[in-house]
């Protein structure tokens, strides 16, 4: 039968996001192979249409979408773009379901303002603001039930300049105001950071109980870990945001990564399903596995499969979109319910800001991870934790 086409714009050549996109593509490929082995969708095989994209350049994003449109894809699955709006515009007339892991409130905000135009755009993970919003909640949780004894109630934020980090930092500051922690200092840095020395010096001067390093480059995090271990701020809880989720972080930092915490709003759970996926993935793609976009790519493909099977004709884009909007799906990264004014997956745990879920199984959980013995261990939310917070090497 005629195959169903899934467009996967994948960054292959640009300087940014190649690793994440490779993860996404691998996850999608795995799902495609499984689906086709199981007889396809309504008897039609699934086929991927892969095209290159440079996430930083609007021309290139538009061009990638145009290529998908020309290939007459039935849906687009994409990890993320730094400039999503031109891509969304380019697909606005074609209106095939466009599922992504953009993690960007600005993009879902665009949907909220113009729900008709962007009705086909689904963000299958919560927006980045939740990193900030949930941060105090996590701190509290660590304090109350994981044995972290804050030496003071100060929080020191180190922020990079890209929009993503800025948004997170702003959200964190907003949330911290409502908590019993206080922002002691905000240090600005900018990629590339040649030398973390001055930053660590400042961290030591402020001597806050909790430290948030709001950056995005795994390699620089690794460099930070090494320098920090050499000259740490005693007894502080150091949180590294999303960057360490990239697989190379552990290889680069090695021993030095022990004791640091980080989190991701989108990640493969360590529950039964998640573990099964991890096993399958590792078999198909040996080597170190990424834990974020692998699962996302896999989930998107299965989500679409469910939608197509329910609607019947993948060419009825509107019906497929409507089905997706009204029918949540539980994948390896959590429960994607996008029937809300942002059309993004709900975030768990509930932090009081839109869009959140109150139960683990009603949303996509943010995973808080600590590096323990050079391995990532989920320490929070408790519902899916793998280990408890261990004292970091610099705690006495």
């Amino acid at each position, binding site marked *: 039968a005629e195959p169903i086409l899934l467009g996967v714009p994948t960054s*292959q*050549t640009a*300087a940014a996001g*190649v*690793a994440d996109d*490779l993860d996404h593509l691998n996850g999608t490929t795995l799902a495609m192979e499984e689906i086709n082995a199981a007889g396809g969708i309504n008897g039609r095989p699934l086929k991927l249409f892969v095209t290159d994209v440079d996430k930083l350049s609007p021309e290139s994003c538009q061009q990638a979408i145009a290529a998908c449109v020309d290939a007459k894809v039935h849906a687009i699955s994409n990890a993320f773009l730094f400039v999503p709006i031109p891509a969304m515009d380019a697909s606005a007339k074609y209106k095939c379901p466009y599922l992504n892991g953009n993690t960007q409130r600005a993009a879902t905000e665009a949907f909220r303002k113009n729900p008709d135009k962007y009705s086909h755009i689904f963000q299958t993970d919560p927006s980045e603001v939740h990193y900030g919003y949930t941060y105090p909640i996590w701190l509290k949780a660590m304090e109350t039930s994981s044995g972290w004894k804050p030496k003071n109630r100060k929080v020191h934020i180190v922020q990079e*300049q890209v929009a993503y980090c800025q948004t997170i930092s702003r959200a964190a500051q907003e949330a911290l105001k409502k908590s019993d922690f206080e922002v002691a200092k905000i*240090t*600005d*840095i*900018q990629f*590339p*950071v*040649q*030398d973390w*020395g*001055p*930053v660590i*010096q400042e961290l030591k001067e402020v001597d806050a109980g909790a430290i948030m390093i709001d950056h995005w480059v*795994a*390699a620089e995090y*690794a*460099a930070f870990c*090494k*320098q920090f271990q*050499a*000259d740490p701020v005693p007894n502080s809880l150091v949180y590294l945001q999303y960057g360490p989720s*990239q*697989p*190379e972080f552990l*290889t*680069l930092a*090695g021993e030095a990564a022990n004791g640091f915490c980080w989190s991701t709003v989108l990640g493969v759970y360590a529950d039964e399903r998640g573990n099964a996926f991890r096993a399958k993935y590792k078999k198909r793609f040996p080597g170190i596995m990424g834990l974020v976009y692998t699962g996302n790519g896999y989930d998107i493909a299965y989500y679409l499969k469910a939608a197509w099977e329910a609607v019947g004709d993948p060419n009825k884009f509107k019906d497929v979109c409507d089905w997706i909007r009204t029918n949540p799906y539980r994948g390896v990264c959590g429960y994607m319910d996008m029937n809300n004014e942002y059309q993004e997956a709900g975030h768990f745990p509930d932090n009081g800001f839109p869009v959140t879920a109150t139960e683990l199984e009603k949303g996509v959980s943010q995973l808080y991870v600590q590096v323990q013995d050079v391995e990532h261990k989920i320490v929070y939310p408790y519902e899916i934790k793998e280990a408890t917070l261990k004292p970091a090497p610099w705690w006495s």
Partner: protein
Amino acid sequence: MDIGFILTNALVLACIYGTLAIGLSITWSSVGLINLAYGFIFALSGYGAWLAAQYLSTNGIVVLGAGVLTGALGGMLVCALAFIPIHDKPNFTVRGLIATLAISLIGTQALLYVFGPRAKNLPDIFGFWKVNVGGIVLTSDKIGNIAVSILVVTAVLLWMRSSRRGLEIRAMMMNPHAASIVGIGVRKTGFYVMSITGGLAGLAAVLLSQTYYISPFGGLAPMIKGVSIALCGGLGSVRGAVIAAVILGLNEALTARLLGGQYVLITQFLFIIVILLIRPRGIAGILDRAREA
């Protein structure tokens, strides 16, 4: 204490920048090529060192040697492709610029294809230890960096000043025709200059592997830094490059301390622009125009 901290910090940065810029500066001063493939050589030699660490030995000397060697090979490749065929043709500087750009475009994609997008790291070549100097903690790689960079830069400076080869290198770009008349083989010199500067890039790659991990695009940032410093110091003047590195290191340390890290790039480029406006030939710019006499 604060002053001491800023100064050590500036020193660290100056060493990093000096190591980055010196190769570019020599390349320009001798073969007249702005080597935009420098970033590619940087990444390539990182991978060379990484392969050595994976398959040969994690001994610091071996890794360093492998990096320098790969860098030298990379330099020779660039020389063979972008210098030998066009050095005596019209418009060489612009064509060389584009040729090295093309090499870097192709090479980076090849690296991306062969080694994948994920960054790699090298074993600690200087071990893992630290010293505390008056409250300033310096890690082994920083101290190693400082020591090796100062050593190498001094050695290169001395060599350029006092040896026949150094003289040849400086003479070659100014007038290739005259150079051949005094017995300087332009192509041969080109090859060894490019392999030496490639080796320097390799050295920098290995030394800086803790800051710039090895990745296909990991050479871009060091290259931009290196080119700016080399130009700011005055193309072709190793001494100028060293001075520029010190000034920019100091600027960065001060800015980070006094204004905030986000202003580092801004002040840096403002600084370069101001320097160029004051001294249009860079800090130690040589006279690159013969007078009409």
